């Protein structure tokens, strides 16, 4: 099957997200789309999948024009899509999610999930997914949810499979497995459209690469080209892909966690006797697949979790048992992992969001009375300093792009004297240029003598920033290793191996590969 997009244009209001895009996707190929944040990749795929209606242009299948009135039509035409943000109903089982929209039903529409279960098991076995059809989605780790999305597409016999940033939340190992699955699919004749910001993966898997910038195709790239060439094509200027930071000047170990355990209300241990410390002027990065306790680690430091035991000391003072407000006031800066739900309030203005946890302190308030003028002045300053792209301090934060929302949170947390700085996924969804900037700010905070705790699923970022790396697996601290530990060892540790095991294992594997 050959799929052709011809002259696709998509406008939102008077903003053009896709501008006369031509792409041809052939079966038996992995076709990658590269482009910076907001370039229009997802939009293009949503048009192709019938979720958005193209403003102009045509979609052709095997040279015949088709018209999709909705995803249903696209699926019927053999197109499957794994969305950047999962399209799974959290309270449904795997089987229900897979069946949805394509249900087997008996008389009077009575559901028959048996066939679906069988299909799931079959596909799961074929690709080694290990997915239980009766598991509830919200209980599953993201990696498994990812597979459920792929199963959804495969069950519908997709001839074209679109994968929009599928690797953003996977471990290196899982990523490798996914790439293997993609190869299997390609070899069985499926056309795969792959979107990723991770140039390494793109280079490894692609047969064809199309680069999009500001909604336009700027050309094709050779998978053999170097990463910095690809980056330059994407952004339109040369980008420095590595951060030059000085050696840390360690001070006192002012932040210390001892035997920290956190329980879910079900009694499950989310963190299991975790102990470590961070010195002034040091960045400790926590690596690990999502769902292994990183979120709970940061949230329990912030006083956001119930059922916490052990000790968290900052400058000798115990944090456990204090309120969130007290903890913030004792000088802890916190960038939560999900900026849109935890970090900013979408219907508040940028200016308000910039003082979200400082609103009741001087100079923003005197007594109960707030001072909007001071807030505004602060906002103008921060907007310039952090290069927040917004229509102004009065714009609602929800209208900002994800990257700019992230900058608002960073600006808020980094602009007061801190005794500890915690950032979860500090650059998630941020484009290359801004990553550079934010990383420099984090390092500057370290250099001013603040202990810094970074949590990131992005291994590149961890390696880039960390002076030391801690790895969490199923709530346990697997080990703490130096910042320059090789990636494959980290990967193995993230899968639960201790650092000694990982080193020996990666040694043998390295040899096999070589």
């Amino acid at each position: 099957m050959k799929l052709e997009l011809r002259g696709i244009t998509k406008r939102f209001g008077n903003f053009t997200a896709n501008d006369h895009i031509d792409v041809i996707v052939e079966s038996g190929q992995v076709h990658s789309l590269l482009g910076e944040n907001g370039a229009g990749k997802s939009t293009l795929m949503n048009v192709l999948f019938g979720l958005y209606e193209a403003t102009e242009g045509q979609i052709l299948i095997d040279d015949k024009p088709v018209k999709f009135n909705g995803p249903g039509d696209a699926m019927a035409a053999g197109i499957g899509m794994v969305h950047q943000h999962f399209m799974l109903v959290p309270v449904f089982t795997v089987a229900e999610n897979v069946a949805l929209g394509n249900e087997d039903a008996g008389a009077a529409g009575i559901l028959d999930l048996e066939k679906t279960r069988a299909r799931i098991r079959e596909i799961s076995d074929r690709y080694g997914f290990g997915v239980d059809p009766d598991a509830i989605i919200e209980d599953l780790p993201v990696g498994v949810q990812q597979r459920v999305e792929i199963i959804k597409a495969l069950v519908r016999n997709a001839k074209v499979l679109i994968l929009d940033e599928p690797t953003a939340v996977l471990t290196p190992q899982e990523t490798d497995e996914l790439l293997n699955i993609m190869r299997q699919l390609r070899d069985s004749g499926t056309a795969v459209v792959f979107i990723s910001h991770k140039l390494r993966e793109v280079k490894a898997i692609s047969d064809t690469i199309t680069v999009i910038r500001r909604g336009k195709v700027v050309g094709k790239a050779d998978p053999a080209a170097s990463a910095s060439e690809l980056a330059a094509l994407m952004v339109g200027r040369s980008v420095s892909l590595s951060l030059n930071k000085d050696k840390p000047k360690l001070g006192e170990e002012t932040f210390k966690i001892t035997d920290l355990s956190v329980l879910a209300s079900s009694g499950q241990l989310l963190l299991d006797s975790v102990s470590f410390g961070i010195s002034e002027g040091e960045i400790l990065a926590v690596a690990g697949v999502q769902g292994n306790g990183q979120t709970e680690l940061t949230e329990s430091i912030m006083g956001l979790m119930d059922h916490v035991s052990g000790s968290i000391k900052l400058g000798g003072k115990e944090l456990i048992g204090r309120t969130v407000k007290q903890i913030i006031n004792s000088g802890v800066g916190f960038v939560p992992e999900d900026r849109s739900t935890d970090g900013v309030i979408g219907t508040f203005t940028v200016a308000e969001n910039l003082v979200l946890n400082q609103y009741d302190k001087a100079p923003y308030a005197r007594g109960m009375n707030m001072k909007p003028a001071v807030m505004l002045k602060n906002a103008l300053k921060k907007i310039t300093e952090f290069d927040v792209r917004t229509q102004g301090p009065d714009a609602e934060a929800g209208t900002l792009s994800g990257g700019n929302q992230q900058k608002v949170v960073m600006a808020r947390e980094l602009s007061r004297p801190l005794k500890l700085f915690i950032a979860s996924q500090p650059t998630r969804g941020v484009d290359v240029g801004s990553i550079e900037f934010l990383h420099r700010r984090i390092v500057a905070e370290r250099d001013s003598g603040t202990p810094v705790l970074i949590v990131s699923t992005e291994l590149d970022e961890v390696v880039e920033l960390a002076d030391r790396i801690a790895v969490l697996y199923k709530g346990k601290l697997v080990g703490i290793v130096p910042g320059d530990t090789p990636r494959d060892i980290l990967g193995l540790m993230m899968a639960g191996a201790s650092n000694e095991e990982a080193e020996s294992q990666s040694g043998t594997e390295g040899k096999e590969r070589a």
Partner: protein
Amino acid sequence: MSHATIARTPEAAPANTAVIRSWAAPITYLVLGLVALVGFALGSPHADARFRITDGSQRISVPDLVLGTTFVGWAGTVVMLGIAAYAFVLARAGRKPARWMMPVFAAAFVISFLVWAIGSADTPNVYLSGLIAGSFTLATPLIFGSLSGVLCERAGVVNIAIEGQLLAGAFCAALVGSMTGSLFAGVLAAVVGSVLVSMVLAVFAIKYLVNQVIVGVVLNVLVAGLTSFFFSTVMVEDPEKYNSPPAFSVIHIPFLADIPIFGPIFFNQTILGYAMYLAVFVVWYALFKTRWGLRVRAVGEHPKAADTVGIKVNSLRFWNVVLAGVVAGIGGAFFTLVTSSSFNKEMTAGQGFIALAALIFGRWNPIGAFFAALLFGFTLNLSYVLTILGTPVPSQFMQMLPYAVTIFAVAGLVGKSKAPAAVGEPYVKE
């Protein structure tokens, strides 16, 4: 390199869990147990409470149940305090209260309370079957209303307009029923009236993206205004012609209707009464066991996900709201074709809001809403019965009983209930 790292690990054994002590349940049990001790055991009126199961008009005759208030009060208290103590033991050990504890405790409490209350009355003697049957009758329109709410909210549309739907149904049933003299036409008109209300809700909420709470609240006012207006201008002018609808008669199923207690509830109802049971079952079955139900729930939880698999979110929502109108319309007809013989201004008297509470209390589940409405009907009926038997409690406090019980149940036993995730959010597609 094994994928087992991500798959669920069923062997996730004790090593991965620890003790959480939750004292909420034992404390609640203890407090209620002490209430029972002071009220029902120590405060026993030392009389016999007589429960009549049959009243002689049935084929089957069952002897009266006579219970000593002192005995039952103490027995109940012992059971309740026993459960409370056991709950403390479990909590200490970090274990959750056993599943049977809540229902057994609730049963002990209700039985002791009932025996105490009847025993304390001037006439310590009650017709139990009538008490229960009356509860069902009072609950029937509430149940229809709740089902309407369930149908809307499961699809992601808030339905504050249940009151308006019921009232519109009641009005249309009375008007058309009177003019045609036909029960069928009356019910049909009720359905049409209520569906019209639904459609306004659907159009404003889905097409014009107006906040659904606003539309619902306003629709209640609008329907109250319209029906009162036409009541004053049309019905009052000639009540014989416009406001004397026929009434559904009771269909008495021989033999079965004579089964003590259950007979009158299940086998001695009007068509609309039987329709209520059917509706509860059908809505439950359809929501949870059919293709349609799966889609409806998906749309209410995550409309975009539903859209990506080709489900027409807004049209499904629209038709669900309309269907909700059908169900509420039948409930509305119940007011004028079963309960009473004519329409009256604002005669639904806030029952739509009670239905709303019942559906939240019932956790958006038809069966749950059924029992929640029943609890309400039971306490309401009990308050009537107790005043009839004569109690020293002022009538105004008896009238508060069902509302107070609902608050207790919601605050003490139910706690948070989780609405469908996307309820209230319009779905907009680019």
